[in-house]
């Protein structure tokens, strides 16, 4: 209930305020979003497995996003930013696929 209200308020705030992503962060935003999606699907799977923990979810979400952005940032500084982002995207995508597959098994064959 509280989570639903929070979600609605967040969406409304986003629509009204239309926050702008600062220019320096724009190259890292897509990676951060993919990392956030990964954490989200992981949480959904944990929920279906019955082991969901809100603390673990919040920590894994924030650290995923930060680390993904940080890796790409460091890569940019070293001149291997695009290669590193490919690596990050591959790893995160494989995890997302595995989690979604588990979720699907849970929902339709459980």
């Amino acid at each position: 209930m509280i989570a639903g209200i929070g979600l609605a308020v967040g969406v409304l705030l986003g629509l009204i305020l239309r926050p702008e992503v600062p220019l320096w962060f724009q190259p890292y935003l897509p990676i951060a979003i993919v990392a956030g999606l990964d954490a989200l699907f992981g949480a959904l799977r944990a929920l279906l497995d019955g082991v969901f923990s809100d603390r673990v979810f919040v920590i894994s979400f924030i650290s995923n996003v930060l680390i993904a952005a940080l890796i790409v940032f460091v890569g940019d500084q070293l001149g291997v930013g695009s290669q590193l982002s490919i690596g990050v995207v591959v790893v995160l995508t494989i995890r997302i696929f595995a989690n979604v597959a588990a979720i699907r098994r849970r929902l339709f064959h459980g």
Partner: protein
Amino acid sequence: MSSDAALGLLRSLVDTALDPSYHEAAQQRADAESPEEGDQETRHSSGQRPMSNARRISTAVVLLVAAATTVTGAIALRQINAGSSLQRQELRQRAESQVIATDKKASTVQDLRAEIARASAGLGSAAATDSAVPQSAGLVPLQGSGIRLVLADAATTEKAQRAGDERLSRVLDTDLQSVVNALWAAGAQGVAINGQRLTSLSAIRSAGDAILVNYRPLSGPYTVEAVGPQQQLADGLTTSPAWADLQAAAEAYGIEVDQQSASVLRLPAGEAVLRYSRVVKGGAP
């Protein structure tokens, strides 16, 4: 062997797809609830707890809503990006901020160079700071009277298209090169194009549609400012072959050329990174 390693990597990725800390947290919770019987069985049974139908349906609904949100968001993003003017604007902003950063660094270089000059003057080693050398090398700002020449691309490309090459309606790097050379030959003490001071190491060349001066892209109209004896500069320029070429281009393709004398011109200092040469002691030639 390497394929085994790769497989292992993939397997570990899939195995740890669910953050292991979820299970650890669940285990801890189970331990806290029943500290005596915290055996492996509880963990497994809680992991494989069968789901009620209502829960499955509600989860499916949540998933559907999430999917719908993602798809609408993606479509909205596509529509925003379709104009791509936003993206272009952002790219331009980024490029501009990079240029500003470069300018800042260049001014730092200027400051440091001035500091070095002061320091070495204090040592009495290089006395060239107030000699004619930095002046003619274009490394210090220059102020004085001279002439100003404005070259602009043709307003229409019709004539050039008729001649078969649209590029001819634009001011070319060779135009600027020959004009600048004519100005030097006529006795200019310093020349700048759109505020870019020419040094002995400056290059004027084209890259795509832009003209690079000091590796800085410039766009038209191009203002060439030359400090020197006005009459001599004007005469030297208008009698040079470069001027004849310019007039011909103006006639044939519509390039606009405007020359006037200016009583006060302020040319900024140029940058030149000397790799091998050094300023010698008492270095005026």
